């Protein structure tokens, strides 16, 4: 017969105020198989734990049940205590008498009876518990960082500086992300490129960082500490080992009218191109969609101009495999285009711009060399209107959230405009000004007070073109909803920050969760902001939600620390709460019939095929096997297996059945 020890905790008064803990201990003490049952004020305290340890030895307990708080809180505590007393830690279970009972019920007879039932269930379960060993898995100490914006750059550098290898994968021909497109940055107005470029160069030169630009993740298999990443290196059509980056080819390329992505469509680029002068790497790629040769089979002018013969016409995409132990997702965000707004002209008006386009106008490296000029006629706008919350905080547009950065960059834009166009007049339409952050409120006040930006609280209902002017119709809600009409030369929309294109597919490849707006989901909104629900995959930057540079960099360093902490172990220890497929003696080998329904059900791809072979090497049967590193113990397969051949260790069918039956057999 079992010898179970039961320890009921008062949790100060948290439990004992509504549950008659002494009665619980008394009644459970009378249960078959219970050798010892007591109650105590704080089981988790040192003396409390000592009671457990001593009882294990004194009564030779083969199972322990602690009726106390949530196992999330103290299961490790009590399991450790049992282990110290020589009992396998997985023979110790907790009944949650606090969250599941005392906190949710009034003091009454029934509350105590429920507590008794909860403990009883655990006693019946523990009778069926088996000693388990924790699982050890080796760690590959190399990190994969996906996305080379400031988040990916910072995370890569931080990890690389702890001495570990990093593989940085960037989709575009250069790293840098949105920050490379910005002019000056709030709240200090320092030049974005000037602070970013040194870091980009550092990435390229760091001995621990392997950079793949123009590359994308194809697939990710494996589990924490042991991932296998397949990476597609898109064909650049230029051999980077011989190309000197001289740029002669770019000068000569006849296809010159392609809208430049870097300039947010305001400038043009050639078919063979480097996205911007400070690009890293500073070598061109051929955009095969627009190149004359790939389109029509003739041209090859770049090949003729290239002194070192670096053009590779027949180069194909290459898929490489890298083994890594952790992944940092840093794929950033995007902004809605002006075409998203019927009320602001559906993107037809050339002088209605997005904030990102305005950044390019204001940037010294931009299409107008930093002068604010209208895309339509090149004139300097004398009246400019900024519209904050364009799309954001608008449930009707499907974007109920605040994009967080727009209030600040709109203030910045208005300020930059006033600095550049001294006789100009700027108006900002806003819903609220959200300027939480160090020196942020002061920054906005400076725009209003020193730079005389006209702030109007209200929505803009419509923008339309009339005689070369943009008529902006809005209301001023602070003046009792008074109509405001401005004849502007330029309108800038602070369009909503949205998830980057392809983020949903990427999340599915990585098995990480994402929110309804396709931003990646953190594991806990407060306590696990850089973790995902998939162990070993971390988040950095605006791929989790729109955020500014300081926050992005902080988060990236946070993710890097998590990776470094993971890499500080040679082996990972995991709870053995994983699925197992039963094994029996020959000729049965297992009751598994190899239907692999479990394989189709497993959300973590943890089910593998195991071939059972005879002595002569001939195949006897193929059955399922669980990869213990991948399995998350969710139990989906268990529900699916018709022959009940698969079970979760620590939560076997038998154990859970015993729990349920203990209630029904009363």
């Amino acid at each position, binding site marked *: 017969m079992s010898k179970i020890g039961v320890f009921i905790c008062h949790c100060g008064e948290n439990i004992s105020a509504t549950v008659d803990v002494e009665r619980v201990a008394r009644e459970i003490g009378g249960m078959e198989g219970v050798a010892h049952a007591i109650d105590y004020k704080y089981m988790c305290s040192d003396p409390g734990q000592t009671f457990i340890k001593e009882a294990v030895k004194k009564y030779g307990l083969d199972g322990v049940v602690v009726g106390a708080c949530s196992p999330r809180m103290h299961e490790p505590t009590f399991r450790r205590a049992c282990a110290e007393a020589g009992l396998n830690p997985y023979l110790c279970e907790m009944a949650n008498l606090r969250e599941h009972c005392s906190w949710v019920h009034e003091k009454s007879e029934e509350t105590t009876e429920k507590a008794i039932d909860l403990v009883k269930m655990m006693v019946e379960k523990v009778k069926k518990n088996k000693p388990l060993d924790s699982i050890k898995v080796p760690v590959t100490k190399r990190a994969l960082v996906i996305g080379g914006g400031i988040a990916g750059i910072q995370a890569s550098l931080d990890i690389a500086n702890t001495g570990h290898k990093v593989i940085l994968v960037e989709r575009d021909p250069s790293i840098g992300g949105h920050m490379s497109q910005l002019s000056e940055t709030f709240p200090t107005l320092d030049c974005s490129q000037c602070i970013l470029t040194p870091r980009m160069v550092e990435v390229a030169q760091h001995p621990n960082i392997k950079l793949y630009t123009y590359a994308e993740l194809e697939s990710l298999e494996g589990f924490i500490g042991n991932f296998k990443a397949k990476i597609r290196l898109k064909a650049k059509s230029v051999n980077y080992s011989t190309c000197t980056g001289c740029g002669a080819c770019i000068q000569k390329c006849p296809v010159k009218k392609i809208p430049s992505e870097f300039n947010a469509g305001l400038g043009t680029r050639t078919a063979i191109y480097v996205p911007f002068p400070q690009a890293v790497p500073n070598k061109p790629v051929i955009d095969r969609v627009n190149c004359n040769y790939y389109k029509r089979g003739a041209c090859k002018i770049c090949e003729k101009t290239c002194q070192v013969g670096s053009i590779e016409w027949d180069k194909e995409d290459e898929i490489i495999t890298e083994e890594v132990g952790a992944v940092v997702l840093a794929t950033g965000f995007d902004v809605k285009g002006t075409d998203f707004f019927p009320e602001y002209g559906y993107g037809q008006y050339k002088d209605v711009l997005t904030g990102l386009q305005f950044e390019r106008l204001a940037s010294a490296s931009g299409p107008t060399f930093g002068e604010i000029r209208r895309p339509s006629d090149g004139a300097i706008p004398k009246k400019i209107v900024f519209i904050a919350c364009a799309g954001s905080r608008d449930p009707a547009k499907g974007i109920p959230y605040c994009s967080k950065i727009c209030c600040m960059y709109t203030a910045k834009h208005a300020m930059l405009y006033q600095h550049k166009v001294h006789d100009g007049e700027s108006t900002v339409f806003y819903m609220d000004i959200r300027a939480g952050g160090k020196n942020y409120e002061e920054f906005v006040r400076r725009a209003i007070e020193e730079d005389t930006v006209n702030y109007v609280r209200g929505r803009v209902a419509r923008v339309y073109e009339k005689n070369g002017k943009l008529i902006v119709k809005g209301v001023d809600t602070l003046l009792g909803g008074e109509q405001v009409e401005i004849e502007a030369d330029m309108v800038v929309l602070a369009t909503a920050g949205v998830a980057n294109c392809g983020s949903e597919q990427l999340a599915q490849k990585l098995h990480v969760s994402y929110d309804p707006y396709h931003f990646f989901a953190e594991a806990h909104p407060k306590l696990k902001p850089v973790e995902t629900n998939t162990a070993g995959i971390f988040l950095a930057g605006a791929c989790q939600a729109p955020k500014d540079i300081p926050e992005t960099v902080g988060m990236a360093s946070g993710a890097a620390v998590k990776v470094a902490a993971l890499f500080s172990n040679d082996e990972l220890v995991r709870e053995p709460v994983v699925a197992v497929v039963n094994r029996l003696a020959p000729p049965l080998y297992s009751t598994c019939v190899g239907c692999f*329904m479990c394989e189709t059900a497993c959300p973590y791809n943890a089910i593998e095929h195991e071939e059972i072979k005879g002595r002569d090497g001939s195949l006897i049967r193929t059955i399922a096997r669980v990869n213990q590193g991948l399995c998350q113990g969710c139990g989906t397969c268990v529900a699916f297996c018709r*022959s009940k*051949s698969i079970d979760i260790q620590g939560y076997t069918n038998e154990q859970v059945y015993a729990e349920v039956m203990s209630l029904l057999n009363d």
Partner: protein
Amino acid sequence: MKKLRDRAAELLSQGVVSLVIGYEEGTKRPRPLFCRNSEGAEKLIFDSHCFHNLAVYITKKELVGKERFAVTAPISTLRSIMQLYVENQLSEEKLLVITVDLSGELREFTTFDEIAAYVAQFELKRGEREQEILSKIEGMTREERWKFWMEEMSHCFKCYACRSACPLCYCSKCVVEVNRPQWINPWPAPLANMEWHINRAMHMVGRCTACGACGDACPVGIPVDLITRKMMEDLAPEFGYVPGQPAKQGNALSSWKLDDREQFIR
């Protein structure tokens, strides 16, 4: 018929296969025939009365052995074979499938793709009996249906003939034999019978190909096949399944598609 016999004899004598599973005349209706030589093949028949689902034998290792074998299969059996293939229970190298098509010609399949293409031409229709009972049941309220099945199932005495007849009940240990824990009480009684039949239905959902073998086998005439058949029919509108055509991947209850039309699931 002659063509079939000749071909079977040829396959056996040439050693292409070591066994042909087919039909021979029985007392009331055709019965299964296992021929291992050309003399045995003389007794083979194949006509519209041959509906006993022979796919039930082809997962039995002790019967089919290690060598290649052939099976004659009407359309319903072909469906079962496809489902067994989806569930990793068959291999192409070991199996030769023979049928007689509508024009009376012999057809042989060596790959499952060929079978799938052939099966896809045939729509699954309810027969007279199925239509009669199912339309009656479909007209009932929830309570009436429960009463109907409780009454029907109360006759079950757990002979498990339905299980033995089903080609998809190939587990080496069925859930009814699992006793740690004992999921299903072994005795025949109204509640214990329901435990068995609800389990059976759940285990067949998305898999049953509506061959009807289980209902046909039941000695007390419980229309058990209609439960699983109806579930299968209902999968079509809800999950985009084609009734009677095996699901290529997994099962309606386990598989998940990127382009699922339900938004909440994504």
